[in-house]
């Protein structure tokens, strides 16, 4: 057992209202520089939809993540060997066209336009070239099902759905969607890190944040293609890759990352997970059926004395172990098993988990009359408007059982709370529901509290960074006394 700690995340999709506040918070802090205009380290997608970049989940086209052609794990894009022949032109790399060309508006024209017959307008201009552009796509082009005949109908997660299920998803009055906020998953088996020929990408040993060393990046572009979530971006101006840094300067000082902090729906949870680094590769190699369980089994119980001893032996500070024991992520993922990794079949073992959304009630149709209330108080999970198969493709590695389990528990908690607060459900029924959902009154109470009554401190249990120790071990702090400081001595620009 090689115990390491990781700052992991849970997004509770049932609470996401799709306001994009997270995206804006991130953009304002990190990606408002030249060359990063098109980047959204945090973005919120509408599902069903093609997302950003369009159809990123379709690895037949984007070749991201890992594959196991002969029982051995290898990158689907360019790993060792193949990079030698593909370093000049990466054959799996999308271009800006598949994201969108960033634009602004020529606002000056409103003030400077010569007097004329018509009201002056602010025309859109490209933020790359400054020329007039015809806007064809944007960061949220298919938001709220806009353009659904193109985008929603081409969602790769629709694979395996029957014609009827597909029709139902987009039929007027029955259509349904939910939001899917995405950031870098800070994976346990990151494809981007494994693909980087320069070794610029790395996972931090202490907190598992995946970072990119800008001074070692040489723009070989392998990471862009290798990340199946398309969360490594190419800065076209500096010629370097960039990605979500989980606001590590904030996390190190005990603050939640900007997107977490600003989340209006309070859907985001952040906390420490202890995991067994020794078994990561073996877990990534498990069969498709076992992937979710194998991934979950890597996460260790922070209350287990042996795990605690091993963690200490591995240099993990007591305060970090302490926050692991309080981690909301541990509860959602490991104890309640309600949070699931997105697209586990990419085999990168993401450390961002999603609680699947409860879909709206299925309308009941009797003759010509449409009744929007199901016969049951809470309709059966399998009758939800989002077909179980769709959610399973997204969050269950294609297996409906995992998603059904998570949704049943959510539903049982609702029955239970209905019995407590409204009383139109009797407690024995609620208890039966909980039992059927593999839960209990105590657990339901805990789930309810962490889901609905959660405070800042409940949601974000951030471990102390203990960087003071790290610096002590690396160098004498007095060395830097009276010197020019750390980091870049000149601003990052393109080339010389």
């Amino acid at each position, binding site marked *: 057992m090689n115990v390491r700690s990781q700052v992991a995340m849970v997004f509770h999709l049932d609470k996401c209202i799709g306001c994009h506040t997270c995206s804006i918070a991130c953009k304002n802090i990190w990606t408002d520089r030249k060359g990063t205009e098109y980047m959204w380290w945090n973005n919120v997608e509408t599902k069903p939809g*093609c997302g950003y*970049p*369009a*159809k990123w989940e*379709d690895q037949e*086209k*984007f*070749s991201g993540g890992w594959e196991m052609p002969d029982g051995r794990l290898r990158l689907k894009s360019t790993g060792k060997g193949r990079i030698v022949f593909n370093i000049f*032109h*990466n*054959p*799996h*790399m*999308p*271009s800006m*066209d*598949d994201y969108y060309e960033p634009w602004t508006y020529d606002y000056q024209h409103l003030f400077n336009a010569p007097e004329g017959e018509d009201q002056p307008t602010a025309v859109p201009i490209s933020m790359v070239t400054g020329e007039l552009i015809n806007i*064809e*796509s944007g960061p949220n082009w298919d938001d709220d099902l806009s353009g659904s*005949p*193109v*985008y929603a*109908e*081409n969602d790769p997660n629709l694979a395996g759905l029957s014609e009827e299920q597909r029709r139902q998803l987009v039929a007027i009055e029955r259509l349904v969607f939910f939001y899917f906020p995405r950031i870098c998953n800070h994976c346990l088996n990151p494809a981007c890190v494994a693909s980087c020929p320069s070794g610029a990408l790395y996972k931090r040993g202490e907190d598992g944040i995946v970072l990119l060393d800008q001074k070692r990046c040489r723009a070989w572009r392998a990471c862009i*293609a290798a990340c199946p979530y398309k969360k490594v971006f190419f800065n076209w101006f500096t010629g370097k890759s960039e990605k979500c840094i989980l606001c590590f300067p904030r996390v190190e000082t005990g603050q939640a990352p900007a997107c977490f902090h600003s989340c209006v729906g309070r859907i985001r949870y952040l906390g420490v997970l202890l995991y067994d680094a020794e078994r990561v590769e073996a877990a990534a190699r498990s069969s498709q059926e076992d992937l979710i369980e194998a991934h979950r089994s890597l996460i260790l119980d922070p209350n287990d004395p042996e795990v605690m001893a091993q963690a200490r032996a591995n240099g993990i500070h007591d305060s970090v172990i302490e926050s692991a024991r309080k981690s909301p992520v541990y509860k959602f993922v490991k104890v309640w098993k309600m949070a699931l990794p997105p697209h586990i079949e990419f085999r990168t073992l993401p450390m961002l988990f999603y609680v699947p959304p409860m879909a709206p009630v299925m309308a009941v149709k009797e003759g010509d009359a449409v009744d929007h209330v199901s016969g049951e108080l809470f309709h059966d999970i399998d009758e939800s408007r989002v077909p179980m198969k769709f959610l399973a493709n997204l969050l269950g590695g294609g297996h409906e059982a995992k998603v059904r389990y998570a949704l049943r528990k959510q539903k049982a908690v609702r029955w239970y709370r209905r019995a407590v607060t409204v009383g139109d459900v009797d407690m024995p029924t609620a208890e039966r529901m909980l039992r059927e959902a593999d839960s209990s009154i105590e657990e339901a109470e805990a789930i309810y509290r962490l889901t609905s009554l959660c405070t800042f401190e409940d949601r974000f249990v951030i471990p102390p960074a203990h960087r003071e120790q790290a610096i002590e071990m690396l160098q004498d702090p007095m060395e830097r006394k009276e010197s020019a400081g750390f980091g870049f001595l000149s601003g990052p620009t393109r080339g010389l």
Partner: protein
Amino acid sequence: MKTAGGTHAQRRTDPCRVPGAVFAVLLTAASASGQEAADFFRQNCISCHTIGGGRLTGPDLKDVGKRKDRAWHLRFLQNPQAMIDSGDPYVLQLQQQARGQVMPTITGMNTARAEALLGLIEAESKLEKSQFVGLQITDRPFTAEDYAEGKSLFVGAKRLAKAGPACISCHTLKDLGGLGGGRLGPDLSRVFERMEGRRNLGAWLMAPVTPTMQPIFKQHPLQPEEILPLLAVFEETAKQGSDDVSVALLNFFFLGLGGMVIGLVSIDALWKGRFRAVRRPLLMESATRSGR
């Protein structure tokens, strides 16, 4: 060689002079020994001159010191062209005898060297048989074996004894076949006529003095037993005239062009599944679908 070659030769620079005075000083200090003069003579003079071996392109140098005084010779050796320009009647006479050819200015010639050379010639002239009596090529008619051997030396199939590059590297010849010979140097199809026969050409090959060949063959000289078969080839080809080289050139070019096209096609095939675009085709596809 011819006058043209002579002007080329004048352009040569002294290797030791180049990086500046340091090298120059180092080298002049080492000069002036008798052996050095003999080597210098061998590398620069024997392609046109003998000592007691009769006239080649230039006159036999036996007892040359008796024809003009030493000061005249020193001047001439260091700059033959200047002497012609000055209209010296004896030099003009020499030029006429050499059928218009001018002695090139020899790289590295200076007063000390000229003195040493004149001393060497004087000493050699007194010998019964000088070491520079020249290549004594037999007058027997060339055989088919000579020709075959010469051909394989020319194309390089038989390597030169002193590891010099084969003639084909820079020269072409009539009926060479394939893509022909090189074209850095002149076409050698008629060199036998240009160089006026067996004796002169043979002597020239002993120590080629053109600026590009000299530095190479100084270190990798042709051997007498190699020169003979080569002469056989030159004599034979001279009877046939020269080829039109542009055909070989075009063949070469089109082979390259064809190969490149095949290369590009295979690149396209090798990366058939490369990423092209996803978003645009998606829009196009749905546009055609709804258009129908």
